[in-house]
């Protein structure tokens, strides 16, 4: 299928207007020895054949009923109201680009302004960007912001070991171009507050924690913010936006910057992306934020309208001195999150958070009763939100294979690879989509595979 609409006659007329005989003549500037290579690609498919082939490709994956998946670790199966895809499918939105012409982009600008507004209230922060690529890159940009806030005079970033391992890897890559380095607390699977505090010094640009942490548990925050502020650094918190429907926002316990992945807010897992980088901070840092910001203003007739603002931070104006190189972001995913949040509303999001809490606790209690299993052995008394660690009587990979093959269940995340001391442990996620029946089935299956 080709989407080139030209008829033979149109092509001829256009070539004549340009004054060349053949379309190939337009490429005389291309060195002859490399011009028109033969590309080895499969032959073209018509639309019906394409659909058939792609359906077959999709069918090669095991896409489980979300009720029977207990895999989370940063990407979650949550309910997605039908309103989200209805709005996302509007061509006016998804076939547009960045709002360089605000007069014909008021729809997306207002939607992003409202997204920023809802994220501010949800996180307890004063300003939110119009989106970053994903939670990990939002966190990396938060670290760069902290280094800039210290005018490059501080080179240490203290990160809790209970921050998502892949997020930490992304930050490490982002710091390759700087002289700064990451210091991670002991990899004992818990972020001991006292230990993190002991790592903070006058060279520390930021302290970074995840809350609820990678293991699903709330950290004992106590005076962490005060401690890092006293040392002159920033307090960066990575969070789960669903938890904020019911539980304390990072703004309440002293965060300077909040980063999160917004995939849970109406966006499909999609094998890892595209997702949504949520980035919010105190107003004091507004001029260091990376990426687009939408601001309210008025038009020539005094009517309310919206524009991209503070563009002087951005690469197309500041070039080598920009706060970040980001241009394309994740705006459509921010729109998805906005529609999700507006649809769920105050009560709906609270209800989702409460269901996650209740169902995960039921699952933990039931699994905890099984012989050879233990729940959150690394920190048994610390409260958790929707994920918990399970010590298994056999290697996690073995158990997962049998759960999948014999019971059609996608089991939890094998923690042994990233945390050697948690060999034979898995991280189980339970959301509002897991029914009591599916949880009971998991418990029954675990009992059988362990026997």
């Amino acid at each position: 299928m080709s989407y080139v609409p030209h008829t033979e006659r149109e092509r001829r007329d256009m070539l004549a207007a340009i004054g060349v005989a053949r379309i190939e003549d337009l490429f005389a500037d291309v060195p002859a020895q490399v011009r028109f290579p033969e590309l080895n690609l499969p032959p073209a498919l018509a639309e019906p054949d394409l659909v058939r082939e792609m359906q077959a490709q999709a069918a090669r994956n095991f896409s489980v009923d979300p009720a029977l998946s207990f895999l989370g670790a940063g990407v979650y199966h949550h309910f997605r109201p039908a309103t989200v895809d209805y709005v996302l499918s509007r061509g006016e939105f998804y076939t547009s680009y960045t709002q360089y012409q605000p007069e014909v982009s008021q729809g997306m600008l207002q939607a992003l302004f409202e997204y920023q507004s809802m994220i501010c209230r949800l996180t307890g922060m004063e300003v939110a960007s119009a989106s970053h690529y994903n939670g990990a890159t939002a966190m990396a940009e938060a670290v760069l912001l902290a280094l800039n806030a210290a005018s490059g005079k501080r080179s240490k970033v203290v990160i809790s070991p209970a921050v998502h391992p892949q997020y930490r890897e992304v930050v490490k890559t982002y710091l390759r171009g700087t002289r700064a380095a990451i210091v991670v607390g002991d990899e004992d699977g818990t972020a001991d507050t006292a230990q993190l505090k002991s790592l903070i010094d006058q060279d520390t640009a930021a302290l970074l924690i995840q809350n609820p942490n990678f293991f699903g548990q709330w950290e004992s925050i106590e005076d962490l913010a005060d401690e890092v502020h006293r040392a002159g650094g920033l307090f960066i918190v990575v969070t789960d936006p669903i938890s904020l429907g019911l539980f304390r926002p990072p703004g309440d316990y002293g965060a300077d910057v909040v980063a999160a992945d917004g995939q849970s807010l109406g966006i499909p897992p999609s094998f890892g992306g595209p997702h949504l980088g949520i980035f919010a901070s105190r107003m004091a840092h507004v001029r260091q934020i990376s990426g687009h910001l939408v601001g309210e203003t008025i038009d020539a007739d005094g009517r309310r309208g919206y524009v991209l603002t503070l563009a002087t931070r951005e690469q197309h104006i500041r070039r080598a001195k920009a706060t970040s190189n980001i241009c394309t972001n994740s705006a459509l995913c921010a729109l998805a999150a906005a529609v999700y949040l507006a649809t769920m509303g105050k009560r709906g999001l609270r209800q989702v958070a409460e269901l996650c809490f209740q169902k995960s606790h039921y699952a933990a209690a039931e699994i905890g009763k099984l012989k050879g299993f233990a729940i959150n052995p690394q920190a048994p008394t610390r409260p958790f939100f929707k994920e918990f660690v399970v010590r298994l009587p056999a290697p996690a990979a073995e158990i997962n294979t049998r759960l999948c093959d014999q019971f059609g269940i996608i089991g939890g995340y094998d923690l042994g690879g990233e945390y050697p001391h948690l060999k034979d442990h898995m991280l189980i996620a339970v959301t509002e989509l897991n029914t009591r029946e599916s949880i009971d089935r998991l418990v029954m299956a675990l009992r059988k595979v362990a026997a």
Partner: protein
Amino acid sequence: MRDAIQTVYELSVSGRAGVDLPASDVPPTDLPADEMRADCGLPELSQLDVVRHYLALSQRNFGVDSGFYPLGSCTMKFNPKVNETIARLAGFSDTHPLQPPETVQGNLALTFELQQWLAEIGGFAGVSMQPSAGAHGEFAGLLMMRAYHRERGDLKRTRILIPDSAHGTNPASTTMAGFTAVELPSDERGNIDLEAVRVACNDTLAGIMITNPNTLGLFEEHIGEVVELVHACGGLVYGDGANMNAVVGIARPGDLGFDVMHYNLHKTFSTPHGGGGPGSGPVGVSARLKDFLPGPVVEAAPDSDGPRYRLAMPVKSIGRVAPFVGNFGMFVRAYAYIRQHGAPGLRANSEHAVLNANYLRVKLRDTFKVPFERINMHEFVCRGAIDGTGVRALDVSKRLLDYGFHPPTNYFPLIVPEALMIEPTETEAKPTLDAFVDAMKAIAKEAHSDPAQVKAAPRRTPVRRLDEVKAARELVLSDRTKIAAD
């Protein structure tokens, strides 16, 4: 239509709900009192309120589906609808990135094949799908260049040459990767100034970033010599693939000697721009950089019943630039796009993108001067100001909105004063191009007969020109409407 649309907070009424969730079906556990909040601050709307609100907003937005969108360097081509349907197949969209590899062989196979196809199209030895956007790919590419030099103990190489016509992301990425950007002038034919390259080449050079065709829409006439000079002094050549839509099946950057390049799946390979994103910016590299690719990448191992696919980290990888494999949902769309076209179809796209841009240039050049005029590639840059009338390029752009067209890119590249950068893409038909030419010429006439009207444009849009100074000064960045408490 022209009145302001209320925000979700203004529409909020305490007690309304947009969705109904099932009650808990498990025995209750006490909530941790210390961790609770009173109110999460979200608005309360009915589902019909939500639908009408976003429908009304969509009607105040212009996309490729609304009309001609010749935004230079952004490749606003048609986004095939079937690709949207395909990307939403549950087998793709509901798979979790941490599922065991044996349960996601379809996804891994698709990603592997796309890596191979992109490598074939670009003439590269390897591709990583990790970066989320073009600028993200630039950053990854520059980190690879840095790692390459460091591995050789070549620590002096701190400078990156960047032409003055380059996208702003190039120097910004250079800074992020810890290099110093050195600006190169352009010559009188719109090429990189070869003499300036020669002077800048020494043992402190890490490499050069080249956009080819460049942002004037011109194919670099001395590309071979530039690459040779940079390589001869030990530097590497980065290609900004933003303008790849001109050269698919026409020339492979790898064959021209480029060491690394990012592809913009959201430009060349038709994945939607999404109102600013998400995109996808895979990087392709020559053999000497292959081991440095960001990872994981997908590898294939032969097995009795066909290849088995798995994720693997290249041996000297710069690491992850994103979680998981990258923006997989975009891979599905780009894969479907390449599969629809085959090699001849992709080449025909580039040919017609170039045909359309040259047609617009010759039709417009008598009215809007083209400063570096020769056969251009997929876009061209003209001067948008109308001499003697006070009408500037921005005014012409705003007046185009009244004619129902999205304007070209304004005031870029920086080396052309009053620039309008026009990229029609291959999916536009001649009647659309002719109507655009007519509108541009009509505006040029109006600039003489009634300049005030042009300068007051637009008038037919939901809002008129907006006060950007006020926005930047007052910084109202979120809705301050009070919402009723429970």
